[in-house]
């Protein structure tokens, strides 16, 4: 689970199976399904768990069927570790 950073949700009934997202995905996460939707198109499915949430598939999708989620969990836990703190140091946090 730690490797997974992103996820996509596909509205398969609107998908027309143009495969542009399959080519755009740098992780080869997406492929066309063997099944068809109501329109008769093979729709896209996620076949791997290595999605990074890069949005490329959603950007090239002509039918806007892809919703992208991305998790940046580690940043919240620990921003930085400060050692050797001296008295006259000032620390600015943006």
């Amino acid at each position, binding site marked *: 689970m730690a490797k997974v950073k992103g*996820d996509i*949700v596909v509205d398969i009934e609107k998908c027309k199976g143009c495969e542009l997202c399959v080519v755009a995905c740098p992780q080869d996460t997406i492929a066309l399904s063997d099944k068809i939707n109501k329109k008769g198109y093979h729709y896209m499915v996620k076949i791997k768990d290595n999605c990074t949430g890069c949005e490329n598939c959603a950007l*090239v999708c002509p039918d806007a069927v892809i919703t*992208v989620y991305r998790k940046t969990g580690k940043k919240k836990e620990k921003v930085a570790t400060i050692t050797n703190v001296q008295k006259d140091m000032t620390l600015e946090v943006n």
Partner: protein
Amino acid sequence: MDETIVKTEEQEFLEEEICVAENLVYRRPKTLTDLDLHYCPGCGHGVVHRLLMEVIEEMDIQDKVIGVAPVGCAVFAYNYMNIDMQEAAHGRATAVATGIVRVLPDKLVFTYQGDGDLAAIGTAETLHTCNRGENILIVFINNAVYGMTSGQMAPTTLPGMVTTTSPFGRDVNKMGYPLKMTDLVAQLPGTYYVTRQAVNNAGNVRKTKKAIQKAFQYLQQKKGTCFIEVVSNCPSNWKMTPVESNKFVEEKLIPFYPLGDLKSPKEETK
């Protein structure tokens, strides 16, 4: 949006962790209506529709924008864009937009036209609108054929390109040379921002979105005509798969129609 979303078991398992509202980075813009687009699979029209609506949603100008739809494949654009829209006669979208922006100068008016509409039947209207420097945005989708009427040769068809009315390839001696509308209007003093973009891959889509964002900002500042040409594909009439057609755009169309800003505001202030 009442979307029927079917997920695999794996996705449902992952959804507990990732698919929550705070992790959302991309979704269908709400300014796009819930209808299915009628375009062929892989058509660039869908991408440009979505980009326009994304920009309008992000800039929160949904109630200020008026779009003018063309005749051509994008004739039903008013069904998909959840903004005020007006249909124009073939090629006359810029003339209609001129009327709208003169009556309602505070509205942000854009036209959405293809190459048959803007570069063939509407050449005069387009050039004169740009020459007058009306405060409108012209979005020009160039896919080098007449898409709606099944792929006849357009003014923008490349030399040697096979279409239904040029079955042996476009012979420039008989049929003339391709018309580079964007280069033409860049010469006119009325235009403020003229650019050529493409939607064949994710990087170009991001650049196109930035260009649209800029153009709407210039419209708000009442700078003059903004002209965005988007080099697009036509898988059905090029008789290719969508992926092949995007390769064709990259290998043939973009070398002939080089991407980039032909006229940007910095040049004008010199």
